[in-house]
């Protein structure tokens, strides 16, 4: 028997428990993607129940279907254009009045709606009793009680949804919102006009179209006008007339009046379907908030939480990180000894494993970080962090919620940029993603330590602090600059719900964490892999290099000399072996340096040298900076190769080598500034591209940061020289 297929969409307010219900219904059978063209997450799951194949779609959580935010546009378009068989509206019972606003909007669209009255037990404990039958009767919509976090009512919900989908009864017109007579007149007039002017071409119901046109809904208006052909001007005039008619009578915009009347309609329903007992219980959530957003201790607690998150992510995460590094090393060691020397081996070991390995070590950090962020989100604390920080963030033209992603940037930009998903406004998200790379990530720290340690010794700490501060200041300036130019427009209004605190469900935290990590792992498979191969190719080719000296012969010569010598005793033998080994290291180091110098990478570096010369960086510096594109950690090791740093303590050796080179403290500062600001690493760029879903913005991010880096380094270098440093 082939099972019949049905599509069920879940709609509801944010924090209505929609995601929990979705998780309960679909369990592990969910697929996370994006709605085409936008960064809004699309979750769907296919399950087989009662002989039906049910595709459950989790629509973005919205408060209304007025198309202002992307979430609302996505949700509405899906209901309008994809024609799901049933829309389940998840209604937070303890927040009935506001939840019903979305419900009335759904009722106005001609689709089959079913209400899941969620968390009615909580409402009851707060003294609110909802009469489901009355509510069902008044709105003519089936109502099912559910308790999402206890997994109750899920089966009844699906049964009812299937029943409703199979019911061929026309959706009744009778119980929809009724506006006051004047508005109804205007709607009816416009509806008549549409009926005559656009017969059978209308994508939506006539009444709904008329209402949306009167509300000046941009999307519907454009669509209808484009369909109206010869009648376009007449239709425009008719819409103006209808709007004017209402404005004259109510002295406000029609859309405001209609919002007002919908709430009036809802108030009527609530009055009949809800009884509130006077019994006032202690509101735990409010008491928690008295502490967590307290005027005096709110901030200290917030800082403590953030500190804890950082500790967990970067200090505890260090251990699994070390295990992964060990595994990667072990793997390359095994391959090293078992594979015959070949170009393929070199690619595998020094290209793929080294490249992917250097990024995969971030997996533990990402897992832990997203565990913390899921906790913040699921408990409701995230909204409080925005509440606390908004005043400060607003000064940069950002929303309070941008704070956490930016702060994460100091650790690693990859999870930081992924964390911007918590931002609702597209513009805020773009802006936050663009300025987050200026938060100096932990991978850049080794570079700072080497350079400042060499040239500023005692004042190294101060210099590093100033570098970090410069990043923050420049991110603020960039934020303000972009807000007034490319990302113009009002910042997102702060009208934000502070949901009651809830105990997070392990299942939902785990699903959340796993989704993010899966995305990260997928990226390993493509972008990072390709990038690593490209970088390896550049540094491994051309294969045959014309060395200026015959290193091989020199090495052989050394070995011969060692063999010829006859040390008098064991001590003398040891000294001899040591001397020979040091001499060999020296030659090998010089050979390696020359190899890098003459590889395509080195050639590219030399080609770019004129670009770096004005900011006081020589070709070696430019090769090192180029290699930093894979991961910033590599900059130090490339510098080590090029400056032929020798000895067991690589950092010490590099310092000595740098100090005796022609690098000056001033050019070191210039390089520090450049490293702070220039293009982020491959993993970050891949993440930026993924999150922004736009090559244009990704290119902008790379171009902007790199040119800013150059200009700032130039200014620092030349003003320094002018001042005589």
């Amino acid at each position, binding site marked *: 028997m082939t099972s019949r297929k049905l599509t069920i969409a879940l709609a509801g307010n944010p924090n209505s428990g929609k995601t929990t219900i979705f998780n309960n219904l679909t369990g592990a059978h969910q697929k996370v993607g994006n709605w085409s063209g936008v960064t809004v997450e699309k979750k769907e799951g296919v399950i087989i129940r009662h002989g039906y194949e049910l595709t459950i779609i989790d629509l973005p959580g919205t*408060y*209304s279907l*007025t198309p*202002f935010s992307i979430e609302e546009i996505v949700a509405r378009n899906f209901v309008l254009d994809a024609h799901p068989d049933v829309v389940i509206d998840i209604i937070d019972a*303890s*927040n*009935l*009045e*506001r939840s019903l*606003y979305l419900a009335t909007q759904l009722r106005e669209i001609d689709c089959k709606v079913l209400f899941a009255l969620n968390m009615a037990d909580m409402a009851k404990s707060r003294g609110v009793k909802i009469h489901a039958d009355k509510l069902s009767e008044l709105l003519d919509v089936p109502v099912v009680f559910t308790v999402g976090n206890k997994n109750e009512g899920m089966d009844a919900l699906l049964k009812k949804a299937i029943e409703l989908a199979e019911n061929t009864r026309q959706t009744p017109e009778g119980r929809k919102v009724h506006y006051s007579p004047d508005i109804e007149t205007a709607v009816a007039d416009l509806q008549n006009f549409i009926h005559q002017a656009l017969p059978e071409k209308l994508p939506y119901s006539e009444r709904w179209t008329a209402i949306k046109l009167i509300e000046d809904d941009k999307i519907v208006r454009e669509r209808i006008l484009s369909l109206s052909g010869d009648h376009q001007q007449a239709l425009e005039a008719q819409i103006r007339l209808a709007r004017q008619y209402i404005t004259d009578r109510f002295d406000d915009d029609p*859309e*405001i009046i209609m*919002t*007002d009347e919908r*709430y009036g309609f809802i108030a009527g329903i609530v009055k009949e379907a809800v009884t509130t007992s006077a019994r006032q219980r202690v509101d735990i959530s*409010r008491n928690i*908030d008295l502490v967590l*957003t*307290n*005027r*005096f201790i*709110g*901030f200290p607690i917030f800082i403590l939480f953030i500190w804890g998150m950082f500790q967990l992510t970067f200090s505890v995460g260090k251990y699994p990180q070390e295990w992964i590094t060990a595994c990667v090393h072990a793997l390359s060691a095994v391959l090293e000894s078992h594979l015959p020397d070949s170009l393929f081996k070199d690619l595998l070991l020094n290209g793929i494993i080294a490249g992917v390995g250097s990024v995969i070590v971030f997996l533990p950090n990402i897992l832990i970080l997203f565990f913390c962020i899921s906790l913040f989100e699921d408990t409701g604390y995230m*909204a409080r962090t925005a*509440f*606390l920080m*908004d*005043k*400060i963030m*607003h000064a940069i033209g950002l929303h*309070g919620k941008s704070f956490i992603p930016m702060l994460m940037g100091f650790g690693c930009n990859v999870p930081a940029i992924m964390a911007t998903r918590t931002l609702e406004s597209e513009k805020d998200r773009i802006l936050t993603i663009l300025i987050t790379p200026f938060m100096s990530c932990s991978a850049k720290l080794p570079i700072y330590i080497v350079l400042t340690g060499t040239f500023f010794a005692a004042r190294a700490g101060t210099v590093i602090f100033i570098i970090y501060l410069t990043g923050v200041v420049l991110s603020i300036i960039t934020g303000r600059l972009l807000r007034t130019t490319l990302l113009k427009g*009002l910042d997102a*209004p*702060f*009208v*934000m*719900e*502070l*949901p*009651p605190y809830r105990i997070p469900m392990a299942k939902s935290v785990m699903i959340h964490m796993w989704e993010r990590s899966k995305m990260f792992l997928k990226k390993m498979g493509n972008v990072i892999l390709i990038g690593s191969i490209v970088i390896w190719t550049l540094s491994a080719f051309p294969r045959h290099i014309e060395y200026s000296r015959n290193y091989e012969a020199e090495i052989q010569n050394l070995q011969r000399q060692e063999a010829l010598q006859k040390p008098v005793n064991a001590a003398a033998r040891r000294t001899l072996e040591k001397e020979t080994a040091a001499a060999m290291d020296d030659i090998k180091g010089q050979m390696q340096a020359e190899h890098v110098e003459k590889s395509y990478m080195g050639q590219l570096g030399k080609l770019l040298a004129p670009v770096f010369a004005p900011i006081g960086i020589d070709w070696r510096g430019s090769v090192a900076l180029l290699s930093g594109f894979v991961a910033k950690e590599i900059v130090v090791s490339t510098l080590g190769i090029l400056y032929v740093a020798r000895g067991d303590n690589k950092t010490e050796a590099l310092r000595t080598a740098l100090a005796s080179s022609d690098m000056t403290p001033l050019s070191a500062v210039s390089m520090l500034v450049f490293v702070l600001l220039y293009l982020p690493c491959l993993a970050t760029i891949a993440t930026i591209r993924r999150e922004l879903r736009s090559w244009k913005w990704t290119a902008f991010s790379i171009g902007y940061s790199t040119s800013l880096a150059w200009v700032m380094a130039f200014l620092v270098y030349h003003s320094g020289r002018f001042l005589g440093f």
Partner: protein
Amino acid sequence: MNFMLLSDIKQGHKARIVHVGGSGALRRRIFEMGIIKGTEVYIEKYAPLKDPLELIVKGYHLSLRVEEASQITVEPV
């Protein structure tokens, strides 16, 4: 009648909405969140930095920037 701005109401006081000013999307959003004429709101608290503020409307907690609240005319209750 002594009308005031919502942003001038002290913490722990109640007020009834008289008029929501401003324009465009923000104004409509405020309406859609249930802040409409005649609704009673309770000022729960101001954030530690005095902005934004938290109010209780229709049984739930909503936060608004002071700037946004200063466009809403209320009548103290």
